[in-house]
């Protein structure tokens, strides 16, 4: 029996975005508070899974035209190039650097290259989770 998913879909329309925003907050807060690339990525893929529950595989693939296998490769590339970047400054591998910057609206902000490494982790986690779920979901 096909039920009307109107309420689920309407709630998803707002909830999915709040979940993604929370996952970004967790991802960016990894240095000073619990969180980081792994939980952040898992939670972002949770939001996509919520979309998958409310809609079907084909609709979500149309909403987010992303090849998650390419996403894994991109994540690995970002992490590897962050690690390799330390070569440019004659430092041992995986040496990270940070500095304070002054931005017009944001004020004093500290940026750290470890966030880029974390971004790679974040993308790989999303890619792997979504690849697993989509592959299982597609097989009859």
């Amino acid at each position, binding site marked *: 029996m096909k039920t009307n998913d109107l309420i689920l879909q309407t709630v998803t329309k*707002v909830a999915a*975005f*709040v979940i*993604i*925003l*929370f996952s*970004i907050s967790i991802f960016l807060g990894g240095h000073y508070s619990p969180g980081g690339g792994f939980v952040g990525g898992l939670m972002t893929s949770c939001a996509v899974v919520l979309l998958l529950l409310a809609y079907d595989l084909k609709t979500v693939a149309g909403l*987010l035209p992303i090849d998650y296998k390419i996403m894994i490769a991109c994540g690995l590339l970002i992490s590897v190039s962050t690690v390799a970047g330390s070569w440019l400054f004659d430092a041992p591998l995986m040496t990270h650097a940070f500095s304070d910057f002054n931005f017009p609206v944001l004020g004093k902000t500290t940026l750290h290259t470890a966030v880029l490494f974390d971004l790679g982790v974040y993308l790989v986690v999303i890619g792997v989770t979504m690849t697993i779920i989509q592959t299982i979901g597609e097989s009859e």
Partner: protein
Amino acid sequence: MAFQILLNVILAYTWMFLKTSYSSSAFFVGYFLGLLILFAFRNYFSGRFYLFRVYAIIRLIVIFHRELFLSNIAVLKVVLKPKLDIRPGIFAMQTVLEKDWEITVLANLITLTPGTLVVDVSDDNKTLYIHAMDIEDAEDVIQGIKDSFENAILEVSR
């Protein structure tokens, strides 16, 4: 469009609550992140991603000011010319625009174009009657108006 902006503001406030910092910079960061999320999910909404429409509105404003400037220069030229060799006339133009505000904006833009002036709108809102200061080829003028203004307005409302 309104729903997307509202959702973006809600996301910005959610970000401020998550960070427990209620400064304007936190709002901007949240708004920017919400913008990225909405852009990633742009196919999810029935309308287009709203920044495209904001861009179209900005472009319409730029066109408006450019035409205002050019029309005054053109009138200045005619006024200062010693010989009066203009051929005034009135022609009709069909429009595909439907909403009231679209027709109003189009009429105002045509009035600001060098040498043309909207005289009347037909009762069924389909035809604009335009007075041209120097009517050489009405078809050319109509095509020019359709290409620049009507498309720019359609860009906003589509």
